[in-house]
């Protein structure tokens, strides 16, 4: 395959990495909680879109209108039932507990998905699924291009939400200094709830886009959690747009390494980059040193 083609495909996938990471980054930045079940939330979003398609014929891009609010509610529920308790501890214990709770949640959701929907791969094939945009020697699958645009729009939307909306600013304030936030009258638990719900909504959207452009199965959870983690660590916290760019970067890096070393090692390269960045510069490329 032409190298340029590989890179374009990597870019398209990278947009979804960015979207997946944005949700995780928001939750980690605000609640200081690392939800390692984030990938499972993406998986659930994917299945939501899949079943809306299979059972009710909803076009996946349309079903975003249902999956996103649904994921918002799911996120709110998960916060109230689980993570709301985790945030009561101090930061060190909080992170440790969130990892453990997330780990348990991930396994529980994975098992549930296998139980409900079997371990088979699933993908949404719409009528226009095969459409391709040809630019010179490069073929761009329309669905994946549309997904990239949707991902960008969602992240842009989140950025605006955080910048202009009163509670968006409250969320950012809470992320930066929760005690000062309390002093200015912000109910930080409400900020946590909103952040977690928004993070889950983004995950659900990402899942929907994955189910139509690629494929889903109960096992994609861990894979996507790690992808999101890689991007978050690479980008650092605090910038949604930075996270998106980092996602694109990871997508392209993977594509290049697959071209250089062959397919099976694309996963490994991403993870290796991750570890290197983690050790050398934990605050990421775009993040601020704490």
């Amino acid at each position, binding site marked *: 395959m032409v190298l340029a083609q590989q890179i374009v495909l990597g870019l398209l996938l990278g947009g979804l990495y960015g979207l997946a990471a944005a949700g995780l980054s928001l939750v980690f930045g605000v609640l200081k909680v690392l939800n390692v079940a984030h990938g499972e939330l993406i998986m659930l979003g994917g299945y939501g879109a899949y079943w809306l398609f299979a059972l009710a014929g909803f076009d996946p891009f349309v079903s975003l209108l249902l999956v996103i609010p649904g994921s918002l509610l799911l996120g709110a529920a998960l916060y109230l039932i689980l993570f709301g308790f985790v945030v009561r501890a101090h930061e060190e214990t909080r992170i440790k507990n969130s*990892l453990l709770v997330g780990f348990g949640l991930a396994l529980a959701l994975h098992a549930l998905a*296998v139980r409900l929907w079997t371990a088979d791969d699933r993908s949404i094939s719409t009528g226009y699924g095969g459409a391709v945009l040809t630019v010179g020697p490069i073929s761009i699958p329309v669905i994946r291009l549309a997904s990239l645009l949707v991902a960008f729009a969602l992240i842009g939307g989140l950025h605006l939400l955080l910048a202009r909306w009163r509670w968006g600013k409250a969320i950012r304030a809470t992320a930066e200094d929760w005690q000062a936030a309390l002093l200015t009258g912000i109910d930080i638990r409400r900020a946590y709830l909103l952040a977690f719900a928004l993070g889950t909504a983004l995950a659900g959207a990402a899942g929907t886009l994955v189910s139509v452009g690629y494929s889903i199965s109960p096992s994609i959870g861990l894979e996507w959690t790690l992808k999101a983690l890689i991007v978050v660590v690479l980008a650092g916290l605090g910038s949604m747009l930075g996270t998106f760019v980092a996602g694109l970067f990871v997508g392209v890096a993977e594509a290049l390494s697959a071209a250089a070393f062959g397919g099976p090692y694309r996963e490994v390269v991403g993870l290796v980059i991750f570890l290197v960045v983690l050790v050398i510069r934990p605050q990421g490329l775009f993040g601020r040193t704490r």
Partner: protein
Amino acid sequence: MRSPGGSTENAWTVAILAALALLALLPLLAPRDDVLNFVFLVLLSITLAQSWNIIAGYAGQVNLGHAAFFGLGALTARTLWIAGTPVVAAMAAGALVAPAFALLIGAAAFRLRGAYFAIGTLALGEILRTAVGNVLPEISTLPAASIGAYRLAPRYYLALALAALSVLAVAALGRSRLGLGMVAVREDEDAAGATGVSALGLKLRALVLSTALAGAAGGVFAYYHISYYPSHPFGPGWTFDALLMTFIGGVGTLHGPVLGAVLYVFLKEYLTVRWVDFHLLIFGVLFIAIVLLFPGGLVQALIQVGNGARRRITRRP
């Protein structure tokens, strides 16, 4: 978390070793394969859980990639053994490769605190699992001659010995300066550093002990199974099992992983028989409940409930 050492811990050590000694007689008294297989699993689980406990409970670091060391031990042992090395030597090699690898990444890994260490190890586990899965995608089966000569007893005794070793290691750790140092680091790393305790040195030593035991357990695993996929022991399920067992019994205690392993394996058997598909789901939920509600472990919670009940009963007017 309780401080290690002390009379309760001694009592537990003695009790556990006595129980293990009794189990040594099992193959002679009740040579039923299904019973021995079951106890084997318990013994292997004890080692795996204790090994995770060392890093988590004593050094305070959550290692989400523990399966990597289990897998490395299994891979090394299996490869050497099938190639002709005597099994004990092969297993010993596995128990050395795992910590060697750990040391390689350990110094870098421990620059990461808390969350970063956890996700770093998670990623590491995945890297190894994927890499091994790519390089060795085919199932590893013992040659026919070995299958014919397969005896459960030696595997059983190896697992038993290893379990006893892991318990002794943790007991010795609790008593040693190394153990106390670890607790200091766990409680407050910066303060410990200020008093001259080398946090990194202690963590590395804990890592070596932890991964050596995990690697040895992997070796036993490799010796035990007739055929399995080489990437299987690298799967996150093994890490989760170790976590769950340790948490059920109580992190940072000597008896925690032992009781947790026993409870877990029994519970899993029971659930698998009755509710085949749900056992992972139930364990996931159980785990979350324990982390949030019973940080001292289920065993601790039961003891508290028992004490509470006893107090209520004896409080008569």
